[in-house]
């Protein structure tokens, strides 16, 4: 009986160690791969390292869109503060001035260099944190 109990104890112990180690690794992977979401006002209050991938959400400021060939720059605004975004490529169909948009990219010298521009497949979509009425 004693031998069996000892064996069981060892098994439980091994399982605990492995699942602990596994969870540690998973949470570590999680923590180093989070994309933080900011509104322009929040972005101005905080300092964000340049190599950190972030998401900026807000509205495309009216009259701010400048196109040069495939390159596009515009301002994302929450009607308190604005931040410039630069992107190279095709913007989504629902991207237009005065509509909601989310940019995913890196901040450098006050400009967000976006890898991806998202506009939702829903014309009534408002990005999170935008509770204001226009």
């Amino acid at each position, binding site marked *: 009986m004693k031998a069996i109990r000892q064996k069981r104890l060892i098994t439980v112990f091994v399982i605990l160690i492995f699942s602990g180690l596994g969870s540690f690794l998973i949470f570590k992977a999680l923590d180093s791969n989070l994309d933080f979401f900011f509104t322009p006002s929040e972005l101005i209050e905080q300092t964000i390292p340049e190599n950190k991938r972030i998401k900026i959400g807000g509205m495309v400021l009216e009259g701010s869109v400048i196109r040069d060939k495939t390159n596009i720059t515009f301002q994302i605004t929450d009607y308190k503060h604005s931040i410039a975004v630069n992107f190279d490529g095709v*913007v989504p169909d629902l991207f237009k001035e005065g509509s909601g948009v989310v940019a995913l990219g890196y901040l450098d010298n006050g400009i967000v260099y976006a890898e991806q521009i998202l506009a939702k497949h829903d014309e009534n979509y408002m990005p999170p944190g935008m509770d204001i009425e226009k």
Partner: protein
Amino acid sequence: MLIEIAQFLTILSTGLFFLNFLFAFFFDSSDRHMASLVSKVYTHSSLLLATSFFIYVWLAVSDNFSVLYIAQHSNSNLPTFYKITSIWSAHEGSMFLWILFLVLWGALFNFVTQNSQDLKVKSMGVISIIIVGFLLFLLLTSNPFETILPIAPVNGADINPVLQDPALAIHPPFLYMGYIGFVIAFAHAIAFMVEGNPSIKWESLVRTWSIAAWVFLTIGITLGSWWAYYELGWGGYWFWDPVENVALMPWLAATAFIHSLSVSSKSSSLRIWTILLSIIVFSLSLFGAFIVRSGIIDSVHSFANDPERGLYLLTFIGILIIGSMTLFSSRFSMLSSGSVIKTFSKESFISINNIFFGVLVFSTMLGILYPLIYESIYEQKISVGAPFYNAIFVPMAVLACIFLFFSIGAKWQRKLVISSFVNSISISVLISVFLVLLAYKLLSIHGTWELISIFAGSIIIVRYLFVIWDYLSNKKYSNPFSVIAHIGLGILMISISLNNELSTERALNIKINQSDTYQGYQIKLTDLKLVKQPNHDSIQAVFLVTDPIGNNFYLKPEKRKYFARGQITTETDIHVTLLKDIYITIGDQLKDGSWIVNIQFNYFIRWIWFSAIMMGFAGVMLIVSLNKAR
């Protein structure tokens, strides 16, 4: 009048299904008459519900816009096909379809099995009470029969244009058939634990059903991936969107489940684990419904936010999970088989595979829920994207492939003698090392994980080719389903790696009659046409593409404007070749008249879907052979 009849039939069937649950659980289920009564009541109530659904289809086809839901999601200009599919384009109607499928699985099971089959009565009872749960959800929180009175609108608001697509019309039905198909296994697991007779082999009773549901889920996910690829214009096959993830979790758990079923239908080892998995798979399927329909998570797919629906579903799922887990723990001693799994037997390898699947499900769940938890603690919005999932899935998949590789040739309940496979194992490794070197040198694949994944995929494929060779030359038996499905896995590993490393894209700026080159391809914008369609106008750009060898082909992407909602959509055009897709979309027109054009070379993307189809095909073959053997 028809609307009221349909609604009445649904209410009536709800009552009958509840009655059926009472019959099955509170009367003597070993009584032959009782068994036949349960079976008959089930058939009748499912006929009532199916009739109600068909009336609803008719209401949609005949443009009855006094039904609020139809007025909001259909339009008289739509082709009949899309009038029907508009039923599952939003919450209420798709929930109705979900319930119809749930009822159909039960009806099919009821139809093909003898009333005297073990556990049948109680399983029918479990299915009936789950149907009642969903029907009440439908009628109380999301009634598709709600009307606009007294005056109906002249026309409907139209289905979202991106949903007017054949692949998307069949993607939800396949997915729902998959999700809800696991109800048969779940119901049997519950019935088995309630009956408490360990000699009943519930695992072999549900094997065909579970594999069928798994095939539906596999094909459903693949269809969704294919649709997103060509319709959304982003060019990827998987975005780690929360709603894709809630479909992936039951698939992963179900894959572990059907593997465990094959063990426990032969011997009763792994029985506890199999029961647990059947509960997990079904709960995850329902959890998916909760995530999509509660609006708790922000996603491309989610239906409108409604806390009441979310609360109902959460309570319902909670009751099911707590109930079944309580039952599970109270029957734990009955379930433990006492038989020990031999190291290096086939069972032992499948147990290890279950651990991998478990980790993947856990991580995916974490990725979905972590933003919610994080926001409530730190008041900071975050999202979990592809990098996290890649960091978990890639190493796990590679490890799983390596274990699979060494397990090939393992026997049930016997220790695997690796030494008898030394030749094929070492030759597979050598060939794979050679292939990896080729990929490194010729295709310039330099990503470490990509190279490792190619290695992992190719050892499996080559090793299985040895198995096939052994079968052809020495008539040595091998399980053909396992061979096909796992070669599919190998192809999946390799094609995902190649796709990831080789695919490129570039935005170009082209005026009419001008051309630009990208990667040796010359792309000339030759024409712009305005095409008029019944429900939309479209601008079609005609590109003449010349490949490096000098072959020409046309690509005609479009921009569409749909009348009913004024929505603008992009239609991609794709030139498919064996190794890569040439994928083109048009963006906006600039002030100088030039167009923004996005061109992508997507390598091996067809192979990704092909591998999924191979897995699904293996499942279909297995179902056929299991039924023949009976």
